[in-house]
């Protein structure tokens, strides 16, 4: 019966040690930020005497919720996020005693449209994307269910190829940017938005009508990550997929990127703002943990240092568009300034 006592002692031991000090940083959140965070974590572990932080994926929203679960060693220290924190998250944080959060913006990520490398070239605009994907489009002055089956029907300049777009699923942080910068922009550009408003819809209803995508199988929402999109694109060469700039840059031998409004995506064009579809990348730090979890402040400072997030650092090499205002962020981190209320 010896193993039985061993079990009991293991369980007793487990129950008795909730106060065991944690000495490694815990990070969770966006899967877009995940590769950047692992690159920094690895370099941090190599160059500092602190253990390498543990980095999890799982999504921006889920990560922020975990951050807001409370203060203490069994809650996470940093949440990565590919979209800005929302008021409801801040309220949740407050309710759970997480008063001060530091918002750190460390760079930008471009969102690109890419097709199979052997296929024809695409020069897209938001208006083309809207006409190809929306449930209802404006045709000859009237709102009609989307009749387009071919890219050349949308725009004669586009290749004669069936429409099939692999959009990011609604769980993705990418989807938000995709909706606002491509679909709603296209809705406005094609005049469909004005037509919706003219038909008596209020602002919210117009926006909702704009974001309604066709459901006849020409638009497919991909809930998995970019590797799934890439696999679907391999299977169907007609498809156009939506990827992060860094993912595309690591797979340039398989993907052909489309220009958007005449601009080819690259770190330079995203940084200058010429390429229209990009979003800031953030991480949120629980200020109460600085000084409690060893190395937390050093890690945050290392993350935003020029050696890492600067234009010649490893993150930029991986595909991050470095933030022109990085110096301000560094000063903010050094002073441990918590974020103010959302504007």
């Amino acid at each position, binding site marked *: *019966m010896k193993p039985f006592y061993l079990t009991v002692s293991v369980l007793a031991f487990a129950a008795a040690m909730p106060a065991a000090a944690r000495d490694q940083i815990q990070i969770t959140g966006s899967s877009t930020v995940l590769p950047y965070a692992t690159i920094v974590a690895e370099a941090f572990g190599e160059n500092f005497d602190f253990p390498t932080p543990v980095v999890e994926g799982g999504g921006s929203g889920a990560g922020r919720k975990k951050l807001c679960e409370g203060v203490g060693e069994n809650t996470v220290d940093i949440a990565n996020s590919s979209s800005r924190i929302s008021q409801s998250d801040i309220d949740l944080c407050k309710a759970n005693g997480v008063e001060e959060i530091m918002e750190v913006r460390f760079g930008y990520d471009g969102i690109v449209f890419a097709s199979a490398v052997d296929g024809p070239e695409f020069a897209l605009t938001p208006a083309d994307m809207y006409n190809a994907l929306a449930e209802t489009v404006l045709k000859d002055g009237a709102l009609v269910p989307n009749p387009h089956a071919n890219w050349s029907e949308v725009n004669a300049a586009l290749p004669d190829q069936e429409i099939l777009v692999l959009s990011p699923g609604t769980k993705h942080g990418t989807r938000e940017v995709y909706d606002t910068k491509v679909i709603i922009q296209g809705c406005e550009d094609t005049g469909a938005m004005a037509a919706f408003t003219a038909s008596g819809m209020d602002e919210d209803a117009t926006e909702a009508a704009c974001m309604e995508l066709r459901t006849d199988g020409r638009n497919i929402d991909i809930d998995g990550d970019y590797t799934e999109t890439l696999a679907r694109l391999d299977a169907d060469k007609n498809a156009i997929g939506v990827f992060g700039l860094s993912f595309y840059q690591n797979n*340039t*031998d398989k993907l052909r990127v489309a220009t958007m409004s005449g601009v080819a995506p690259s770190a330079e064009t995203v940084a200058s703002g010429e390429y229209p579809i990009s979003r800031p990348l953030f991480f949120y730090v629980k200020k109460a943990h600085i000084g409690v979890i060893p190395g937390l402040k050093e890690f945050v400072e290392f993350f935003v240092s020029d050696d890492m997030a600067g234009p010649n650092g490893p993150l930029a090499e991986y595909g991050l568009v470095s933030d022109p205002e990085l110096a301000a962020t560094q000063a903010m981190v050094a002073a441990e300034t918590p974020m103010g209320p959302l504007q």
Partner: protein
Amino acid sequence: MTDISAAGPARHRPRQSILTASANMKRRNAAEVRFKLYGLIAISLSLAMLATMLFTIFRDGVSSFRQATLSFPVELSAETLDPTGNRNPEDLRKVTTVGYQKVLSQAFVAELQARGITQDGVSDKQIGDLISRDAAGTLRAQVLANPDLIGTTIDATILAAGRVDGFLKGRVTFETAVRDNQINPDQLRLVEQLRDAGIVQSSFNWGFFTNPDASDQRPEAAGLGVALLGSAYMMLMVLVMCVPVGVAASIYLEEFAPKNRWTDAIEVNISNLAAVPSIVFGILGLAIFINFAGMPQSSTLVGALVISLMTLPTIIIATRASIRAVPPSIRDAALGVGASKMQTVFHHVLPLAMPGILTGTILGLATALGETAPLLLIGMVAFVDNYPSAPPEGFLDPATALPVQVFSWASRADPAFIERSNGAIIVLLVFLVIMNVAAILLRRRFERRW
């Protein structure tokens, strides 16, 4: 179903013979042939599926067991690595991997010049890019552990960059390199020369089994070290927690418990528990072990507790079946010569049921080894770069597990990780095969039939 006619008034029946096939018999025979055919089709379909799966896994994964390395002498110059010149560990630490990267890069370029290997269109920086980014960290750790190395020249064997490795394995070709941001055809021509000169070699990839995970920029350095340790820790704890509890519960339920409504309810619920989707146990683990009991996230202890909950019903069911299979005559005989109930169970029933219990336990562990879903929620699907320390403290350290590593590598951008992911599947499959074979051998060796 014999057709022996009973004695009685003779009835008129059609003449039948087993030598001439009647229509009815033909139909029945045809049905039998068809049924056999369906069975064969079903089996060959599933075998074909299995074969395709194994074929793709091995095709994409076997290459991860080989790894390209670069060997060249590296001069560890005191000026760059120890600017203060006092060999003080504190000061030595101030030189980061960026500094070591430069040292490696310069030594590599110098070696190529000395050996007279040149390639038009490849800059010194591009030559340096052929070295893995992981090498600088390894070299730094080596120097910090042994500061006497500074000032000497060592023969370094370091990892080559992922694309170089891919080129030697045929994954990267001149055609893909034209469109690749990370390598160009000129660099590949240089690699060909390096291979002929013996500077680049491909050898068995021990690092795949010992290295920890690596970030997206260093697929060549990624290994299963932390995952193997994590899985081993978890299996050990699952074994220690599940077997005593499971066996005790089964013995009580089979031999001692009265048969009433309560034990019936327990029995039904054990079967139900065995069918609960594993993700549910993950949610439970997050709520109870981490949020309520305050155990550390990502630790193997929480992972083992969650997986134990999942494995326990399987072990109880298998154990009960093997206890039940011990014939009652053995119990009767033991009780008949005056053994107590407890003595009967522990001296006679349990030893006879042992092979079945072992088999059930091993099969339960094999399922547990491949479980990913519950680990997602307790933070074990993560990037963990430090090995967990030795048990028992190590049980509280963060770690990953084999199937988790497969999952996280499969979702990385660099194609080299897909190869690693398939390699990890092969390792996992090998463990599963070993466990299943052990279960079968144990059963063959010790099982008794009555």
